[in-house]
């Protein structure tokens, strides 16, 4: 199959063609030619004004609930939402039922996740059944296709256990992923502790709950000399600590979510349960610092933290609502809307190349000879998530019917075009 991309702006810092507008020919899943003008008969032509092409996007933190929680999302529906969001690969959380805690569970996801338009890859659990007690069989899981290890939405709390996990994965070059939340601080908290929580009469979770665990985990990393990735940093201080650790030469990286770049605690005035997320939405200053971090490179990548919930868990009292929102489909547009000045090659780094580097995934580049694993997008176009175009099984998003700047146009994955309109 031949695909011809006409007059697309290349967004890829690794490519010699970065920031230039080119024709790109893809044959049998490979980029065979990049030139100012290419004529190719019988090729599927993709041409759109303002089209940008990037290495295929990868999400590093999504929850599909398959197996066990299929009423929220399945591998098929989650993958469809990911494709609609411009992703060619998505890493899914082990917080399923049963937990992705052994080879069998890993193989189930690998097998099912190959047949979909976005490849779904498993994250294995750090501890057996996410109980936070004993190490799971991470070596076996990695050999079976697990990309990295995390207890997902229930991060490892015991420092002793995390230290062992960090040491253990060194033998096979594994990566540990932590959501930075210390459960013992603000244990019964429902939102960021600050002036807004005090005025709203909602129990707070101090920023300290993130700062302490980031600080602690960095010290465990320093001791173990392993690899650690923080997913969903929410505070300015947390980001600063990670930046300093990087300067010390530690192998630490981090992501932020689109919603932490868009909302802050002030947006909870109406007790909107769609904005109940974990880590919680922090202060306006934190939100602005995270945006700055995305622009200046302190933030390595964007993670959707796509967490579907059925309506019974969202149309209820704020206290009883489950945390999380869906986000794969809107991730790019939400980020581009929050940071209008974000350049296209930076988008490519945040959504693709940095994620691939952190998790040691197959590289993709807009370069002749590279595997064609690509995402096309239109930074200046408007897009809107509607009930009609939503591909997730769940609807827990605050972005429904809100016009956003930036639109995903499609992907090329495994030689096939997934074109959106």
């Amino acid at each position, binding site marked *: 199959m031949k695909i011809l991309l006409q007059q697309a702006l290349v967004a890829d810092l690794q490519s010699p063609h970065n920031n230039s507008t080119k024709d790109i020919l893809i044959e049998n899943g490979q980029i065979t030619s990049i030139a100012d003008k290419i004529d190719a008969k019988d090729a599927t032509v993709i041409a759109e004004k303002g089209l940008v092409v990037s290495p295929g996007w990868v999400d590093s933190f999504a929850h599909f609930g398959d197996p066990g929680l299929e009423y929220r999302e399945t591998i098929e529906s989650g993958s469809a939402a990911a494709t609609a969001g411009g992703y060619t690969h998505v890493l899914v959380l082990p917080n399923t039922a049963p937990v992705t805690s052994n080879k069998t569970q890993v193989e189930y996801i690998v097998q099912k996740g190959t047949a979909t338009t976005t490849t779904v890859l498993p994250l294995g659990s750090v501890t057996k059944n996410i109980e936070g007690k004993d190490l799971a069989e991470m070596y076996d899981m990695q050999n079976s296709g697990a990309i990295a290890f995390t207890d997902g939405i229930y991060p490892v709390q015991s420092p002793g256990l995390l230290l062992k996990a960090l040491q253990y994965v060194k033998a096979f070059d594994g990566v540990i992923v932590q959501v930075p939340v210390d459960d013992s601080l603000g*244990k*019964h908290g*429902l939102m960021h*502790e*600050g*002036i807004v*929580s*005090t*005025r*709203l*009469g*909602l*129990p*707070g979770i*101090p920023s300290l709950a993130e700062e302490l665990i980031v600080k602690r985990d960095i010290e465990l990393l320093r001791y173990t000399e392993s690899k650690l990735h923080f997913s969903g940093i929410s505070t300015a201080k947390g980001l600063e600590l990670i930046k300093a650790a990087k300067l010390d030469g530690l192998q630490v990286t981090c992501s932020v979510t689109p919603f932490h770049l868009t909302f802050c605690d002030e947006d909870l005035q*109406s*007790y909107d349960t769609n904005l109940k997320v974990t880590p919680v939405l922090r202060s306006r200053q934190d939100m602005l610092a995270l945006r700055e971090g995305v622009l200046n490179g302190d933030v390595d990548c964007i993670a959707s933290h796509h967490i579907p919930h059925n309506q*019974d868990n969202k*149309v*209820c*009292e*704020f*206290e*009883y609502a489950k945390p999380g929102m869906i986000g794969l489909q809107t991730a790019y547009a939400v980020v581009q809307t929050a940071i209008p000045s974000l350049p296209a090659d930076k988008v490519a780094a945040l959504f693709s190349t940095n994620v691939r580097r952190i998790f040691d995934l197959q590289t993709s580049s807009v370069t002749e000879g590279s595997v064609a694993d690509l995402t096309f997008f239109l930074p200046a176009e408007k897009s809107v998530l509607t009930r009609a175009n939503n591909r997730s099984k769940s609807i827990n998003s605050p972005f429904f019917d809100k016009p956003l700047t930036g639109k995903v146009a499609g992907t090329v994955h495994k030689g096939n075009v997934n074109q959106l309109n």
Partner: protein
Amino acid sequence: MKLSTQHLLGIKDLTKEDVQLILTTAQQFKDVLQRPVKKVPSLRDVTIVNLFFENSTRTRMSFELAERRLSADVLNFTASASSVAKGETLLDTVNNILSMKVDMVVMRHSASGAPHFLAKHIPAAIVNAGDGINEHPTQALLDAFSMQEKLGKLEGLKVAIIGDIMHSRVALSNIYLLKKMGAEITIAGPPTLIPKYIKEAFDVRVEYDVKKALQWCDVANVLRIQLERQNQPLFSSLREYNLAYGINRKLLDSLNKEIVIMHPGPINRGVELDSDVADGPHSIILNQVENGVAVRMAALYLLANREN
């Protein structure tokens, strides 16, 4: 005159004029309550449901009495005897009740924001009778009414709110109301029971020494230690709490000044208040209870929005 709001979810949403209107109307109802016939026909044909998802004695009785004295039809619902135990959601419960043609809902709930959630989803007028640690607006209104009755004003009044601020919806509603009406506020109690950002959030003074707070104030509103709402250790023992923060007659006498003592009830005697204060001459606790009915009549009457 009408209220600017359709529900009474919290003092936060009221204007100063709303508060004044409720207090003035409450005075009229208080006068009515002194007559031999205490019942007025104002809310005839209005059906009100009292939804109590949390235990309450005085608030529920006070609301029910207010409703009956306004001639409303009253329906009572308590969580223990309800379908909630069978796993029904709040929205289902309330929609079921509303399909029986109910006009107003008075609700107490353990989750902050529960009445706000309801207001978004159902057409009836909602009166918040206490939500989590957020607000208890009718309590703040009756507290203000009682202060005004006793001391003749709210503006410029120095009010100390003492005790478990962290778990108290009474504290938050009182702060909102007193700030709106121009009173000065000092928050006092153990640091573990005072929200960290309260000073910045409300521009109030914070004092850890109860004696200093008492020395400063005209009125001390002493709050109940909410043992049932604490899920982690916030002070060592009730005995020590009483030693450090409890108010007794000896302490009041040592101040050598006029002071008014209030408490929203129920009192933990020997913890935040000793009996010699609760039952003593400084206390207006029982006046608060009496005024509660008049204030709730006023709020319900105004929310029902009937001109006659």
